[in-house]
């Protein structure tokens, strides 16, 4: 404390001496020393606030003197003060601000003063102050712009946004600075232009065009940093169509989506000329001598996904194609001043991939990947080039290349051919772990179109396993995925390698061999897909998998648990007694040994399994002498299974919820892909699910389907591409389907919690709202009625569960109440858009109580070969057998019988006292009244449940259901023939 005071006093003395009495060279030195000590005081956090405030006073005082030679240091100290101390921002701000205004010049000192202001504001987070102080605006800004100091000019460009200056002015000033004699100023100006996001709203085409023109001029700047910045700017503006400003979407679009929106708009306008011209312009940059420029240029090319295909194809070959030669003349429509020979694009990507510098090659790989989404042929040809990059000597490039392929695979545009396989699979023995891992990642998604490719892929993986044991788990996982995707090939492969798996004649099972385990994984995968008819050979092979249970289940832990796998394998082994001769014919003798229950090999397997079993279930009381597994254990593992299915549905529903933003942004393809994966996932789960969680699975399945339909419907409403909009016929169909699906979700299950039901209802509301905006897919009064009734259900539920209704529901409610009387289409379109914005899809959390209401319908001994007899025109009796699952007494069920155009409904009554049984069997003789005058006919029968809350009145003659039906079973066809 004492030293602090002493230091300060000494400083103060010297400073005041310098400023007030004697500013000679000698005291100047002392003064600088004093200022250095002051800085030490400032940055030392233990300096007392009191001293600091004295320091501040003194510094402020010095600023009022005109010894400008130390002002620079003082300002620096003030900036330090602002940074290190929490107090006194206002004082600093006011002082320095007054100082800056007082100077009225454009010297570096003014800029420094402003920099201090900015720092102090950033610390105190009072940005509003600056924009409100109108004086710190145009005049000062312009004054600084004309500064002769380069650093001031750079500073003002970087901080231009802090001034209260209009966008138009900024653009002009930046444009002016693009011709500054100093390259760093030019670069800063270009970067400034890029970051001017408000430009999207500027209505002046000429402004944008001049930006573009300047950027193009600077593409041949002598300084590389300017050239690279220019390349970036070019692409930015070039996505900007002249018509874009007239389209409403643009103004609404968020800044981050800018590029995307513009690009999409481009396509809508249908004018590719401009974009093509830009593409060619950027192509001219890829032969630049600067590495940075080349890297940026390639990155930019990747942004232009909508460029014409012939241009893109030409980028993959240095030889100019004949077709392309003809084109030359067409291209250059937009840019007036600059000459754009289309030959610029020839082999651009080949050059990029051949580049000496790995960063350029990497950038090229990334861009190629991005562009492959656009065109199939381009994707195929680009892949030829990419494959060669797997031979690159830089690991990073190889890795990027594999990532690009992975990216392509996820977008379904990776078409690997036989001739690629050698090169591609060679990366599986790469000494770098990351590379091998990336390759396997691609393999998981790769479509192997023929048996040869499949075999070489599997052999590649097996070689990988041989050389790098540490990869085992991942390899097994990949094998599993490939096996599931290509089960026929997999079965084939397993059969061919059967000898390796089969215990050798010496009676020793090769359980130590990873290779055998690998093939077994393939077998498991294949068998899961062929669940219904697993050939007995597969069954046998699967038995051998049991000793590897631990290893295999570890690697498949993302797919199933060890218990599930174990249960499955033991389930399969039960059927082992079927003759295997069917497959092996004359080779029967080789295997007949195994069939004997007491044969030594099987026992050996059992021995290996036992310890595992103990670990899993904590019991050692297993009857190992018997060839069949203890049923109680199988059962217990089934219990596990149920839990697992329930747990596994959660993540699927999470993915479904995650697709909502994608749907909103119109990425239909991604949505479809994601949901398809979900479906596959559910299908996998259903393999080992049983009755009790069938309900959950069925519901999840419906839900995924509905989302998929929603995705498809969505793009008709908020289209990224305009041309789809006209195909309303299709839309009609889609919306109907979606409605039906939603009905099935709502009425086809029981046991919903309040939240679950609300979720479904909101979904239904959303569709109503969507419908409202398009008069051609809705009869408005009907939809409004449906809206109201659904809303009242929502209200009821909310009260019941004392839940706050969502914003969407609330708004919708008030919308329904105030709804305008006149039939104003625009009004609905507008409101529905607003309402849809409010809708947000939460993740569906499923309880475990859900029951699937469904029915099975059959007519015993009837098929097209054995039709029922009938006499034309007379009623015919049909002996139905009906199983009803989870139907409760309130449900109104109908049997619907249809012959061509004619429909007959039969109300199903059954004993309502049988309550606790979820399965009912009913045998019923139903007369069908209006048999057609024909020699034979077929009738479609189906069971439906009346949707009691639905609005639609069915005005059918035969006293059918009053509401829409949701169907509980597949249609059953019943065949009739006239009695001869």
């Amino acid at each position, binding site marked *: 404390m004492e030293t602090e005071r002493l230091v300060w006093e000494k400083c103060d003395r010297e400073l005041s001496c310098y400023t007030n009495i004697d500013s000679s060279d000698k005291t100047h030195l002392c003064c600088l020393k004093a200022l250095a000590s002051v800085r030490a005081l400032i940055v030392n956090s233990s300096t007392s606030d009191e001293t600091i405030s004295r320091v501040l006073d003194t510094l402020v005082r010095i600023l009022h003197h005109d010894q400008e030679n130390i002002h620079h240091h003082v300002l620096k100290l003030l900036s330090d003060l602002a940074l290190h101390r929490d107090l006194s921002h206002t004082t600093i701000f006011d002082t320095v601000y007054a100082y800056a205004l007082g100077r009225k010049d454009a010297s570096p000192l003014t800029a420094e003063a402003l920099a201090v202001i900015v720092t102090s504001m950033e610390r105190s987070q009072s940005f509003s102050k600056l924009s409100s102080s109108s004086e710190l605006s*145009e005049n000062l800004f312009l004054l600084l712009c004309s500064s002769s100091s380069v650093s001031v000019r750079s500073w003002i460009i970087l901080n231009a946004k802090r001034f209260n200056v209009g966008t138009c*002015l900024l653009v002009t000033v930046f444009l002016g600075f693009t011709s500054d*004699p100093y390259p760093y100023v030019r670069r800063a100006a270009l970067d400034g232009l890029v970051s001017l996001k408000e430009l999207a709203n500027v209505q002046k085409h000429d402004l944008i065009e001049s930006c573009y023109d300047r950027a193009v001029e600077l593409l041949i700047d002598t300084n590389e940093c300017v050239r690279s910045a220019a390349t970036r700017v070019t692409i930015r503006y070039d996505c900007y169509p002249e018509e874009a400003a007239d389209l409403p979407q643009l103004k609404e679009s968020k800044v981050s989506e800018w590029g995307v929106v513009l690009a999409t708009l481009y396509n809508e306008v249908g004018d590719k000329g401009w974009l093509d011209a830009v593409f060619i312009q950027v192509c001219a940059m890829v032969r630049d001598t600067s590495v940075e420029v080349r890297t940026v240029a390639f990155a930019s090319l990747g942004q232009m996904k909508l460029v014409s295909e012939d241009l893109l194809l030409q980028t993959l070959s240095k030889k100019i194609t004949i077709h392309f030669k003809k084109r030359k003349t067409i291209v250059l429509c937009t840019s007036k001043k600059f000459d754009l020979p289309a030959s610029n694009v020839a*082999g651009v990507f080949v050059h990029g991939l*051949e580049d000496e510098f790995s960063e350029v090659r990497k950038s090229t790989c990334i861009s190629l990947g991005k562009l492959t989404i656009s065109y199939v042929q381009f994707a195929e040809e680009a892949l030829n080039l990419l494959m060669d990059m797997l*031979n690159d000597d830089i690991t990073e490039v190889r890795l990027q290349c594999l990532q690009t392929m992975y990216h392509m695979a996820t977008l379904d545009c990776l078409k690997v051919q036989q001739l690629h396989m050698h090169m591609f699979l060679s990366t599986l023995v790469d000494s770098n772990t990351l590379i091998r891992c990336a390759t396997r990642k691609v393999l998981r998604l790769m479509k192997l179109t023929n048996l040869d490719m499949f075999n070489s892929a599997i052999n590649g993986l097996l070689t990988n396993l041989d050389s790098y044991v540490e990869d085992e788990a991942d390899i097994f996982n990949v094998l599993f995925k490939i096996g599931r995707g290509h089960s026929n090939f997999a079965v084939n492969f397993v059969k061919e390698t059967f000898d390796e798996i089969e215990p050798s004649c010496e009676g020793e099972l090769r359980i130590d061999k990873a290779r055998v385990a690998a093939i077994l994984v393939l077998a498991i995968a294949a068998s899961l897909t062929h669940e219904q008819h697993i050939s007995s050979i597969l069954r046998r092979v699967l038995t051998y998998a049991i000793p590897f249970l631990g290893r295999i289940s570890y690697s498949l832990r993302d797919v199933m648990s060890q218990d599930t796998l174990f249960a499955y394998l033991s389930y399969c082994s039960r059927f082992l007694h079927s003759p295997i001769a069917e497959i092996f014919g004359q080779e029967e003798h080789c295997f007949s040994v195994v069939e004997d229950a007491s044969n030594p090999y099987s026992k050996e397997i059992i021995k290996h399994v036992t310890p595992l079993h103990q670990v899993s279930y904590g019991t050692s009381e297993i009857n190992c002498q018997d060839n069949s597994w203890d049923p109680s254990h199988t059962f217990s593992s089934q219990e596990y299974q149920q839990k697992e299915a329930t747990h596994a549905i959660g993540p699927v529903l999470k993915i479904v919820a995650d697709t909502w933003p994608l749907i909103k942004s119109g990425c239909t393809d991604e949505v479809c892909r994601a949901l398809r994966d979900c479906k596959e996932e559910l299908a996998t789960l259903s393999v080992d699910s049983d009755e009790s969680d069938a309900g959950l699975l069925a519901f999840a399945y419906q839900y995924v389907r509905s989302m998929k339909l929603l995705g498809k419907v969505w793009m008709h409403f908020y289209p990224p591409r305009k041309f789809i909009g006209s195909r309303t016929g299709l839309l009609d169909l889609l919306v109907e389907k979606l409605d039906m699906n939603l009905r099935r979700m709502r009425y086809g299950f029981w046991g919903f919690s309040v939240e679950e039901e609300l979720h479904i209802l909101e979904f239904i509301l959303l569709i109503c709202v969507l419908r409202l905006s398009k008069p051609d897919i809705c009869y408005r009064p009907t939809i409004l009625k449906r809206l109201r009734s659904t809303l009242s259900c929502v209200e009821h539920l909310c009260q019941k569960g004392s839940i706050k209704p969502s914003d969407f529901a609330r708004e919708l409610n008030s919308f329904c109440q105030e709804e305008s009387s006149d039939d104003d289409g625009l009004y609905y379109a507008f409101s529905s858009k607003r309402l849809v914005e409010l809708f947000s899809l939460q993740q569906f959390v499923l309880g475990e109580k859900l029951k699937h209401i469904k029915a099975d319908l059959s007519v015993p001994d009837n098929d097209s070969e054995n039709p029922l007899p009938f006499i034309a025109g007379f009623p015919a009796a049909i002996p139905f057998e009906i199983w009803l699952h989870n139907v409760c007494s309130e449900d109104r069920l109908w049997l619907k019988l249809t012959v061509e155009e004619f429909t007959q409904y039969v109300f199903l009554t059954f004993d309502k006292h049988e309550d606790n049984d979820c399965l009912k069997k009913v045998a019923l003789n139903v007369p069908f009244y209006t048999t057609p005058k024909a020699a034979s006919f077929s009738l479609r029968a189906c069971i439906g449940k009346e949707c009691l809350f639905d609005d639609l009145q069915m005005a059918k003659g035969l006293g059918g259901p009053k509401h829409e039906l949701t169907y509980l079973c597949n249609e059953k066809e019943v065949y009739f023939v006239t009695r001869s």
Partner: protein
Amino acid sequence: MAGIECLVLGAGQEVGKSCVIVSFGGKRIMFDCGMHMGYLDNRRYPDFSRIPDSSDFTKSLTCIIVTHFHLDHIGALPYFTEVCGYDGPIYMTYPTKALAPLMLEDYRKVMVDRRGEEEQFTSEHITTCLKKVTAVDLKQSIKVDDDLEIRAYYAGHVIGAAMFYAKVKDSAIVYTGDYNMTPDRHLGAASIDKFLHLDLVITESTYATTVRDSKYAREREFLKVVHECVAKGGKVLIPTFALGRAQELCILLDDYWERMNLKNVPIYFSAGLTLQANMYYKMLIGWTSQKIKDSYATRNAFDFKHVRSFERSMLNAPGPCVLFATPGMISGGFSLEVFKQWAPSEMNLVTLPGYCVAGTIGHKLMSGKATKIKIDKKTEVDVRCKIHQLSFSPHTDSKGIMDLVKFLSPKHVILVHGEKPKMATLKGKISSELGIKCYDPANNDVVHIPSSQYVKIDASEAFVHNCINPNPKHFESKADNDSDMGAKDTASMPVKEIEDKRVAEGILVMDKAKRPKAVHQNELLAMLGVEEHTIEFA
């Protein structure tokens, strides 16, 4: 003497004995001094007697510039200096200077010791000749004399290859020598500055009409055949020239070996020249590609991890291996010896270089599936092994030539080092597509082209200041409020728009000393000593 005069002494509409004499601005430069490998008579050397004042070459020529160490670019140099008596300055890059003696000595040995020809120059000649050479670095400007400035640029092609820029007063030219616009495993791509304001570019045109696609396909093919061969236990013979291709292929294989974990298959280098060359490469690391330079800190790429030297006793050792052996076309020497041993087995593989001279075993193998090859009267080899022809080339293709010419945008182009009909095609393409005058002279032709002349002007301080600073005056405010509108609609704020019409503007005047000078407009009156008159309208 106005303009630029080019006398093409060699490589005019042919490949071989590159030699061009360029005279401009009172200077005379010889670019390359090569020999033709296809001739044994006097056609093998350029016809030096055509050089003006050929009685005293030292006086006649300002300097000689050699682009790289290939014999068709340097082969005649010892003859010219030691026999013809040129004693002036000679320039070449460091690697060229280092490797040239190897090349020349090897050639001399083959000619004299093996073929028993008359000696054109001795080992001593080579040594003394190279002592006269000044080695240069890339991008280093060298003042040959007061007026002539030369500079070397990276050319790819072989290690140390350079393009040369030469400038006398206002005229500037570039002589490319051989170059490659595509980088390979050990060399970078040719690279030169852009704004050189050239009057003339003299470029090679080996592949005047060929457009080559990705180099990776070539690499992949090569690696695939080699890998397949050794995987099945076969032996691979790679006959190659000692410098350049050998290192390229070796880097490719060494890297592949490393990645594919093929440690157990040895790669051998036959003893002799090759290992010595590798040593040179290690020293000249700065002239190689970016990747090799980058990784140099951790490992010199020419310290091949998997390469060992070969002992004759290993010839018939069992197991797979890869062997690099000279000479490249299996014309004799060690590669022939190995070939005799390995060719009869179908497990083995022999690769051939892209080009083989007629009469060599390589040529015979290339032209069709020869099953029996007569090596001499007594020996006949049964060829059962696989043959793979390499298609690597260190020369740029026609697109590369076009790219370079377009990049340099000279006023004139002269094509050399190519085949006549193809050169004609390229010539047409350059003039039609790029609008640049192009010539393809034959040997001993002279091409005259005009040269540029610039007039130097002074600039006043005010003018310079005006050019480099933004002038507040250039920010013209355009208040956007139309007077009528503004009055009525007070709510609309006037939008300030600014136009920055910054251009370097000045006035060119002749001062009293008759020197041209650019001045700022404000200075004009003072300079002319005239008073300003203003006219006002009442």
